[in-house]
């Protein structure tokens, strides 16, 4: 049990002070230059589109056509592009960013808390029907969210929830895989002995959960939080069908509507739309990339827990 407990074995690798005993076969061997070069070539493939995006967002639409895509043009204008992006259509891009932030943060916090509560409940309590209820949710992991989206739209249309922020937030709150992950996590991370001790001290169940269990569940909680955040931030299908008011659009639907304008406009009046789509794309990916880099300890160990035990 202890070997699979999702402490963070991942991030502690390669630390120079660590005794080399842990990595049995590898530590005694030398680094391989050919393998490193091969993997750097692989890395180049994954970073190339992002490099292109970075370069492209410094160009005017004319320069996109007239200069080589993988290098800067003679007249870089990143700041002008950013300004254009933020002021186009009375600053609708800022509105989209704020909408995305709202949908993603509320969904992620809600989904993580709900999954933590339920995961803790299933892991640490026995009650009638617990197994059946858990298996029901587990089966739902396989139901694809987009196959669910159109039925949800039809239901929300009846309930008058279409074209409101709730149409995006509510469906994102239920994360069956998050529940599974939290249950696996709670099993090991919250020892029964601590719960018993707290109960003997007379603490109520709610207080035990919020003051003790939640803290122990933190790495798993951050994992679910981060992955729901990404899922909602990147969600396209659901907002595409749920919303038709541009002021409610998240960044994905907004950018795709700009891209369609750029495509239809051709070289005519909206010819500078293309530069805006490119710059807007760059801006939209920065927050998530930053979040992942800053929180890597948490999500990597959390993922380890989900992948190891099944």
């Amino acid at each position, binding site marked *: 049990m202890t070997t699979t407990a999702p402490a963070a074995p991942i991030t502690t*690798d390669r630390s120079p002070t660590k005794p080399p005993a842990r990595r049995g*076969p590898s530590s005694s061997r030398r*680094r*391989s230059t050919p*393998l*490193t070069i091969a993997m750097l070539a*692989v890395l180049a493939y*994954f970073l190339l*589109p*992002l490099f*292109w995006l970075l370069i492209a967002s410094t160009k005017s639409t004319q320069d996109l*056509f007239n200069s*080589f*895509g*993988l290098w800067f043009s003679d007249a870089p204008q990143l700041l002008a592009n950013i300004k254009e992006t933020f002021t186009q259509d009375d600053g609708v891009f800022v509105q989209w960013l704020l909408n995305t932030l709202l949908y993603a943060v509320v969904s992620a916090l809600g989904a993580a808390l*709900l999954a933590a*509560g339920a995961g803790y*409940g299933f892991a*640490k*309590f026995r*009650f009638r029907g617990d197994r059946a209820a858990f298996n029901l*949710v587990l089966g*739902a992991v*396989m*139901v*694809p*969210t987009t*196959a*669910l*989206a159109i*039925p949800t*739209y*039809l*239901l929300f249309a009846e309930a008058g929830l279409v074209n409101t922020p709730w149409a995006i937030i509510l469906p994102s709150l*239920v994360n*069956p895989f998050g529940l599974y992950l939290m249950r696996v996590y709670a099993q090991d991370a919250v020892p029964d002995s601590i719960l018993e001790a707290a*109960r003997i001290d007379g603490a109520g*169940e*709610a207080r035990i*959960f919020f003051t003790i269990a939640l803290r122990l569940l933190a790495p798993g909680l951050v994992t679910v939080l981060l992955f729901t955040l*990404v899922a909602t*931030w*990147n969600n*396209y*299908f659901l907002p*595409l*069908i749920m919303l038709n008011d541009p002021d409610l659009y998240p960044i994905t639907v907004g*950018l*795709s509507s700009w891209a369609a304008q750029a*495509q239809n406009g051709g070289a005519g009046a909206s010819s500078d739309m293309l530069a805006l789509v*490119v710059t807007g*794309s760059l801006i*939209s*990916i920065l927050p*998530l990339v930053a979040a*992942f880099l800053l929180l*890597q300890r948490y999500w990597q160990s959390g*993922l380890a827990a989900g*992948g*190891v035990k099944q």
Partner: protein
Amino acid sequence: MAVTTATSAKGKRRAAGPLFVAPFMVLFLLLFLAPLGYAAYLSLFQERLIGGTAFVGLDNYVKAVQDPLLIHGVGRVALFFVIQVPVMLLLALLFALALDSGLLRLARVIRLGIFVPYAVPSVVAALMWGYLYGPDFGPFAQLSRNLDLPVPDFLSEGWMLSSLANIVTWEFVGYNMIILYAALRTIPPELYEAAAVDGAGAWRTAWSVKLPALRPALMLTLLFSIIGSFQLFNEPNLLMKIAPDVISSSYTANLYAYSLAFTGQQVNYAATVSFLLGLVIVIASYAVLLTANRRRTP
């Protein structure tokens, strides 16, 4: 005294369990099972020009399984699944093994760099690759023109499925790699020591120690990949705008359900198609799980 407090505490414990589970379960019923139930209900009706909505039993399903547009859509994503998923998972596995081998310099940079595309919204990924593929200012076209080579048309009929597969692979290799890598890191060192004592080399260790230990993680990534490829929508929906002649509104099953509901206004039939698609995915997932489990216990 002690006995009574123990039982009452236990009673309270049993009561607290459902309370922790309830908020999630209530939303699960409302937002997961209710839409499915409603779609199933809607799929039993048809809107007629005369006489409004009428109960038609399973007529919609009979129509759907004979609908060439739906069959082609499902066939296309099945083909996509058969080709793209093995390539993606094999690459993820190779990269995870390379990272875990301890032979790499810059391993941390490489790991995070390969993972970064996962944080890019699929809309942005599709837009970006769409521009990269494009004949006007895509760097591939620019390079070929400069070198007087024929310009590759990645957005043509023959290339489109591969171009889509490349986008999806680019997005998700890193995610799968991280799951596999995380699983590799939890293999106890004693196993490696035992393998070394038995004289196993790096490849032998990878084959006999690491791969078996990766089984649950591989199943997880496979399961997510089935779900992901059968509901393919975002990438074709965005490339449709730059290649409308190649990607029709029924290019994938999900795209078809979308256009039925929102362009065709055929709500009942759209519900049927969604429901069927969900069913296909669940069946495919279980089929894969069962085959894998059977092989584990011969």
